[in-house]
């Protein structure tokens, strides 16, 4: 290689591996930040191995990728053999075109098209859920197939056509000729196809996002759903492990392949190696098939399953030395009811995301945790079941301020889980104390280019409406136009429209002012970089919200669901959740508890529980309510208008 070529190759490798290096380094970060390195630690590796949900997602991802790769390789190879021998030109062209479709269709279209069909067919047959592991598997096989076919076909074309015929003339049966002569010839194509299918399936997010169903969550989806809270270095630790595993595997296969690497002998060796590889591939294939069958059939749980659908990072899950609430429930249930249950826990990224999945009939859950305005909507649309409070005696601990709120005036459908409000977080080292106090800080030109705004329409419009003194639930389009004008006016000052990115940007000092939920301020303040001093206030008019447990009409086991809700109100899990999430807790066992107050600290208690007596009043005045579908459509259009500027 020439020197210039070497330098160029090195530069390309630098580009390819720079982000990987970042992953490796930050996986050893002692703090929770992904942008401020504060010391070496193996903490996040320990965390990773304790995180049953993430490990489950890894297992799901592998099972899905292996199944999809093996099945699409088998079907794709057979298809390639068939297509290769097609005599009819028309038929051949037709197959080529169809095979090309998933490749030249963006994956968002492949995902949507399959989702529309599954949901439609599911509805037609009145299935409780139309999306599940099998629909995801179908989707993955479908987008892997063309890649396999396109790897195998050229190998068939390169093969000497007289080879199989010669074998048959020498007395082979056609099947034997195919097995002994053709397969080894096209083996490299099959292996490449298998690897490609596996890789594509492993990394796919978009198609999985649209076709994911009940309780079967892959790693990319789990990561995406962390977008209201934060992506932790745990995920970097996982990526680092994956990186080294792959590296080791590749080095090993390379060593086997090249052996005592003398290039002259290569040709001879290659045929021997290809035979070995054929056997190896068959061996691996067989092991995989058996393993898959074992996982799918033996692994199927026989105990009752409770399907819980919650926000990402919204439960104390045993990470960072917290109490594992889901495990706690399974133990508690066994101790109190005498038999085992299993919690199947899945996460969503937003109320709308959850609603879209549930209302299409794509999924079915036993317990969900929507926010207030979404509860109102689902109640009006008949999507919720009234609760049997005899099964939820712990409801008595819910503070009076959190009862009889507008979304559930008679306390029939919901049990409050958390409450919080939107406030403003700022870096006291850069923001003048005199400029703080109300929403105007987000519009202050002094901080141009350092302000963060919500990247979700309702919350972003809310900030403008509270600032202008408008009703956030107005059904007058003019009010929304006025809010849009304010957001447009703010736009040149805004550094970024964010959700979970807010953590990194505030912790590292990348931005100086943001608006986010009060409880998240404590998480950011814990991880702030040297030189950053975060502070918080809530403007007088702001959004108060409650997230509550509900049982949707698609619930399969209502008593079990109610037992779960009841358990979540017990002292130990309730305190653990409140400390993990850092939002306000409507449970008296928690907010009247001395140990909890001590753990949270004085500042947090003051911010989260300022004066609960007038909570109800403020809530009724300022909280988001459900808007008509027409109004929601208008807001969506206005939001797009803002975002295209």
């Amino acid at each position, binding site marked *: 290689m020439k020197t210039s070529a070497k330098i*160029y190759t090195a530069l390309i490798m630098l580009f390819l591996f720079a982000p990987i290096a970042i*992953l490796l380094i930050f996986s050893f970060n002692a703090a929770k930040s992904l942008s401020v390195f504060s010391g070496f630690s193996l903490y996040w590796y320990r965390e990773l191995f304790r995180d049953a949900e993430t490990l489950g997602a890894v297992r799901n991802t592998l099972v899905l990728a292996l199944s999809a790769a093996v099945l699409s390789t088998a079907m794709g190879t057979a298809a390639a053999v068939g*297509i290769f021998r097609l005599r009819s030109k028309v038929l051949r062209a037709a197959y080529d075109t169809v095979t090309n479709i998933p*490749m030249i269709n963006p*994956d968002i279209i492949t995902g949507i098209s*399959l989702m529309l069909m599954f949901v439609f067919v599911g509805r037609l047959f009145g299935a409780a859920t139309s999306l599940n592991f099998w629909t995801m598997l179908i989707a993955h096989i479908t987008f892997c197939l063309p890649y396999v076919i396109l790897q195998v076909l050229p190998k068939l074309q390169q093969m000497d056509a007289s080879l199989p015929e010669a074998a048959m003339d020498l007395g082979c049966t056609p099947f034997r000729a195919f097995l002994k002569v053709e397969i080894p010839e096209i083996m490299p194509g099959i292996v490449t196809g298998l690897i490609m299918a596996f890789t594509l399936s492993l990394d796919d997010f978009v198609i999985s996002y*649209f076709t994911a169903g009940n309780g079967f969550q892959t790693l990319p989806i789990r990561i995406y759903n962390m977008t209201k809270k934060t992506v932790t270095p745990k995920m970097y630790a996982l990526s680092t492990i994956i990186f080294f595993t792959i590296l080791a595997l590749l080095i090993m296969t390379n060593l086997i392949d090249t052996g005592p690497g003398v290039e002259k002998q290569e040709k001879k060796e290659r045929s021997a190696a290809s035979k070995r590889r054929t056997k190896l591939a068959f061996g691996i294939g067989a092991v995989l098939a058996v393993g898959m069958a074992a996982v799918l059939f033996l692994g199927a749980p026989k105990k009752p399953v409770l399907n819980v659908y919650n926000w990402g990072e919204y439960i104390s899950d045993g990470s960072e030395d917290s109490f594992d609430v889901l495990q706690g429930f399974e133990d508690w249930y066994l101790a109190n009811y005498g038999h085992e249950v299993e919690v199947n826990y899945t996460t969503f990224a937003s109320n709308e995301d959850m609603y879209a999945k549930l209302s299409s009939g794509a999924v079915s859950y036993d317990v969900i945790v929507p926010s207030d305005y979404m509860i109102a909507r689902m109640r009006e649309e008949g999507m919720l079941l009234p609760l049997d409070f005899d099964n939820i005696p712990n409801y008595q601990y819910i503070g009076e301020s959190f009862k009889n709120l507008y979304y559930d005036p008679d306390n029939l459908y919901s049990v409050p889980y958390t409450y919080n409000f939107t406030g403003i977080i700022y870096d006291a080292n850069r923001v003048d104390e005199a400029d703080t106090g109300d929403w105007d800080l987000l519009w202050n030109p002094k901080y141009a280019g350092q302000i963060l705004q919500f990247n979700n329409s309702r919350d972003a419009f809310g900030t403008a409406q509270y600032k202008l003194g408008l009703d956030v639930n107005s059904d007058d389009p003019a009010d929304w136009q006025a809010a849009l004008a304010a957001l447009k006016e703010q736009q040149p000052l805004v550094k970024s*429209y964010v959700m979970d990115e807010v953590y990194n940007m505030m912790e590292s000092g990348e931005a100086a002012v943001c608006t986010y939920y009060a409880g998240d301020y404590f998480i950011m303040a814990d991880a702030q970089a040297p030189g950053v001093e975060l502070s918080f206030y809530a403007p007088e008019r702001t959004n108060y919200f409650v997230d509550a447990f509900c049982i949707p009409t698609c619930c399969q086991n209502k008593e079990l669901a109610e037992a779960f809700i009841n358990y979540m109100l017990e002292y130990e899990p309730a305190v653990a959740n409140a400390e993990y999430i850092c939002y306000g807790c409507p449970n008296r066992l928690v907010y009247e508890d001395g140990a909890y107050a001590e753990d949270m600290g004085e500042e947090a208690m003051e911010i989260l529980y300022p004066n609960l007596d007038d909570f109800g009043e403020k809530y009724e005045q300022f909280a988001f309510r459900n808007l008509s579908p027409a109004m929601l459509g208008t807001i969506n259009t206005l939001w*797009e208008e803002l975002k295209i500027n």
Partner: protein
Amino acid sequence: MKEKNGLRLARRLALGPYGLWAMLFILVPLLFVAYYAFTDNDFAFTTDNIARFFTATSVSDGVVTHTYLLIFWRSLKLAVISTVICLLMGYPIAYILSRSPLRTQKILITLIMIPMWMNFLIRTYAWMTILQDTGILNSFLRLLSLRPVHIIGTEGAVVIGMVYDYFPYMILPIYSVMAKMDVRLEEAARDLGCNSFGVLRRVIFPLSLPGVISGVTMVLIPSISTFYISQKLGNGKFYLIGDAIEGQYVANNLHFAAAIAFILMVILLIGMALMQRYANSRAAA
């Protein structure tokens, strides 16, 4: 001869499962996209969704723009820029690879593929850490007492994300075509008086065209429809066609989401057909 007929039958049968599968899970779902695109919430026929894509306007500072046409134009622009950069960066590396010793080829190809095995969302996240104003890149520049650069939240950052994520898809097909190319052709051209540029223009490039076409397809298509990269690296300021589809899906507006998807699909299919035709005509010449 009987045996051979049996063989032919077996091959027909081998094609069967795929034929059925392609029909059920490739063709029929596309019909569903069309069906949703041309119906309203009660599944009555309408062309409103399609019309909305072409006619919806928004006013800003007195200037009227076509909302979705603008979004589409932007997505196309960023995708084309990313594809061109991928091609310019990837073509030389594919050539270098194909002319290296076999062992080096193997190692380099492996290295190029490794990032594809790391989760795509996590990779994009890592780029945020690098490109932020207070990020790794700028710390590095400051260390060298150079002026920091502002990249995150610009079109440049979105393009970097797209180039990074789809780069291997450009290299691999071009490399595999070049690896099969006869090196003697180059030598012959040189002997006949071609300079290096002439060899590239008259010999190497035309022969590698099939690889280039599939590389371009494999980069252009995913970058035109991405909705995660623009959210993370564009600071939420670049609303692309993928964001629009996802936004309508989350807003439970399935029919309009399907309409946008349908239009995008038709435009891409026509574009790809034209490109294929161009490639075929070049190959014939």
